């Protein structure tokens, strides 16, 4: 038996040695190439390592998987990032409220804002070699008219009525009424190749051809694992990036992503909504390799009340007392480790923000809140504060708020439910109040104000004709200054009425990027863009 045991030990030792040797190979590779990537990307990494330079592959860990490849149906920040690399729209948003020419070099609108003419760039090719012209634009926009359930259509183009080819390099987009977010809508609509789409239909996307005019082209997507891109040799834009390949890895577990970054398996960890504040301490000791970049975002966490007749929150003073009882600054400091207090639905990076606009209802004053609550008919009816698991630090935030408001006489409890369950509650109005995060693309409040307030998509049952009228005007006015003022006025009403929602906090997002990696744009509207990713060895410490 002793002999058998010795044999077993030998077997185990051999297995361990084999594993270690294999692992040493892998470890050596990643160390040498400073995050040169794994799997498919690893081969490219090896090539770079052999030449003695930094790998020509950059590997980025993302906190979300991509599941929708259709550029007209995927509207997550990950879709935004990939579409921006693979495709072009007629114009490009800088995600700070500005727009620049992209596939269109010039554009103008009719006086009434219902007819827009775009002059197209010549000499552009898709990544399959197909030449770009007006037919591609017509094909793209006609698709949105034909299928209004596509996310890009339903989010942006409910008033799109037609698209006309004027000549090979001029198109007209026709609307049944002017829309204030016209430029944002155009910038969100990526142009697909007409001939390839006619031939393949949606296989163009789902079979991973993804022909676009962007600086990068797709190599391979493996669901839940990675998405690789290489330089597009047909790109009309000069792509002098140091990197030949960009390898995105989907790493859903934050601690794994951070460990991967620390070991050099990845060069950056970009988390949707930022890396949770309590996880940042894992980066301690890597200050000379990795930079933690704080981003002031326009994403706000807001609390919406159920204002229907008979609900405690039908009374504005109950809502105001509730708002005044919340110690926002303590929640920001203790639960989120940074951020700011928004006013109403506007943060510093969105339209409608007015630094002069202040409100007592946003100042933590439990005494005043208690006194105000006592003047109302609220009599301790139970109130549930709901949120979903996708909201950052939802449970801690809800507990803090519940404790705050219970201290002045409210009777609240909390529930943090799955996203789909909260969506169902919101779509039927079956809630007392809920907290979720909302981001405003390009800092434009159109989507938030139109869908969540004017259309009351979440059934708050709050009706204010003056407020709705301001939002309606802002939605159709093409003048950005005018729209900003209209949203400011709307925000003033929202703050005064504490309805249908109150702002809780503006999130500060932290992202981690290794020194030397440049060109990653972390926009304040929550988007992150990699189109211009590059490498600068002088920045490596």
């Amino acid at each position, binding site marked *: 038996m002793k002999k058998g045991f010795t044999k077993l030990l030998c077997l185990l030792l051999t297995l361990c040695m084999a594993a270690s040797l294999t692992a040493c190979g892998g470890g050596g590779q990643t160390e040498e190439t400073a995050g040169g990537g794994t799997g498919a990307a690893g081969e490219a990494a090896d090539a770079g390592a052999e030449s003695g330079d930094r790998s020509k592959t950059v590997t980025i860990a993302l906190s979300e998987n991509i599941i929708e490849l259709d550029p007209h149906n995927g509207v997550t920040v990950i879709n935004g990032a990939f579409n921006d690399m693979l495709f072009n729209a007629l114009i490009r948003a800088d995600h700070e409220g500005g727009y620049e020419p992209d596939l269109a070099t010039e554009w103008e609108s009719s006086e009434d804002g219902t007819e827009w003419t775009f002059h197209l760039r010549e000499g552009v090719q898709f990544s399959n070699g197909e030449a770009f012209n007006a037919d591609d634009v017509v094909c793209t926009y006609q698709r949105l008219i034909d299928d209004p359930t596509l996310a890009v259509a339903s989010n942006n183009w409910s008033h799109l009525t037609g698209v006309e080819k004027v000549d090979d390099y001029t198109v007209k987009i026709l609307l049944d009424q002017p829309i204030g977010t016209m430029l944002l809508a155009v910038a969100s609509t990526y142009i697909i190749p007409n001939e390839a789409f006619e031939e393949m239909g949606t296989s163009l996307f789902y079979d991973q051809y993804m022909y676009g005019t962007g600086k990068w082209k797709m190599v391979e997507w493996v669901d839940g694992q990675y998405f690789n891109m290489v330089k597009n040799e047909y790109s009309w834009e000069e792509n002098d990036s140091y990197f030949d390949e960009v390898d995105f890895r989907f790493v859903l577990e934050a601690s794994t992503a951070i460990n991967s970054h620390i070991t050099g398996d990845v060069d950056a960890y970009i988390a949707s909504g930022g890396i949770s504040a309590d996880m940042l301490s894992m980066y301690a000791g890597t200050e000379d390799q990795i930079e933690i970049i704080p981003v002031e975002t326009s994403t706000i966490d807001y609390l919406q009340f159920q204002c229907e007749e008979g609900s405690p929150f039908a009374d504005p003073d109950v809502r105001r007392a509730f708002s005044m009882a919340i110690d926002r600054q303590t929640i920001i400091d203790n639960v989120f480790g940074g951020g700011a207090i928004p006013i109403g639905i506007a943060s510093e990076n969105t339209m409608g923000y007015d630094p002069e606009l202040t409100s007592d209802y946003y100042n933590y004053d439990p005494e005043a809140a208690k006194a105000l609550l006592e003047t109302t008919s609220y009599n301790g009816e139970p109130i549930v504060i709901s949120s979903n698991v996708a909201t950052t630090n939802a449970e801690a935030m809800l507990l803090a708020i519940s404790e705050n408001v219970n201290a002045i006489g409210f009777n609240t409890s909390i529930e943090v439910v799955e996203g789909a369950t909260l969506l169902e509650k919101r779509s039927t109005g079956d809630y007392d109040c809920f907290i979720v995060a909302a981001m405003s693309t390009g800092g434009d409040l159109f*989507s938030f104000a139109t869908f969540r307030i004017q259309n009351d998509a979440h059934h708050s049952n709050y009706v204010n004709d003056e407020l709705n009228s301001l939002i309606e005007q802002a939605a159709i006015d093409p003048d950005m200054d005018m729209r900003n003022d209209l949203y400011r006025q709307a925000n003033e009403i929202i703050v005064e009425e504490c309805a249908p929602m109150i702002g809780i906090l503006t999130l500060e997002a932290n992202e981690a990027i290794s020194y030397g990696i440049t060109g990653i744009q972390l926009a304040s509207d929550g988007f992150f863009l990699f189109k211009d990713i590059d490498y600068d060895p002088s920045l490596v410490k």
Partner: protein
Amino acid sequence: MFWKFVLRRIGQTVIVLICVSIIAFLLIHIAPGDPARIVLGDSATDEMVEAYREKLGLDQPLYVQYFKYIGGIFKGDLGTSTSYQQPVAKIIFSRFPNTILLTLATVLISLVISIPLGIIAGVHQGKAIDFFAMLFAILGQSMSTVWLGVLNIYIFAVKLKLLPTIGTGGLEYLILPAITLGYPISAQVTRLGRSGMIDVLREDYITATLAKGIPSSKVYTKYAFKNALIPIITIVGMQLGVFLGGAVVVETIFSWSGIGQLTNQAVGNRDYAMVQSLLLVIAAAMAIINLLVDIINAKIDPRITLQ
């Protein structure tokens, strides 16, 4: 007798799969959350949501939807995913090889360690090796998989730089997830092997064979081990089925895109076709493995076919 037993078990497996298909269908439809609303988002009007429900066939009575789904399965069509907008079968079977690979590696690692350890501990009851084996088993059964996974990454990837943290490809990517997933089952099998050996070694026929002068190593491996094997095969078979259903936690920690992660995502998105099909595939895997386990056990101990 043996083939009658096999046919009866196949019949039972078919009934189980029919029941699972009904339960899976009802559960996901009962859960709150409208897939049309999830796909279309906040900006969609009630009319748009209703039109989309109609497009997905969700406006039809439940039994009609169920029979359409079952009818599709017989034609090889598991439906279209509302989140991927692609055939469900394509998505599931793109991930299934990863799950099978992880499952096999996990079972292999856990058996290589636990079977010899359990036998040696059983034979040397009360000795140092027995104490070591039990310590190994108790630790394995007490540790949280999440903690073990993160700890493994920290030690072997961050500190020792021996293994990669994420990815798939070579053997090196498989080691940490397989160890993390395999340790608890390894601990369980070690305990079972030990107690099985202790019980068998007390049997009269073992005493008799030893008394005849047959070498103890032959008695332990040829006679005792075979009889201690039945509960081990049963438990490994069940775990194999569970692993084929996906290990959500380990898959998430190691970014291993398998069936577990997909199921979690599909439930969150209320992707009806995907959830129903995943549950059915998982149940089928579980049922087939149970069937194989029963057949193997019946081969080892023919008395089972009489029960």
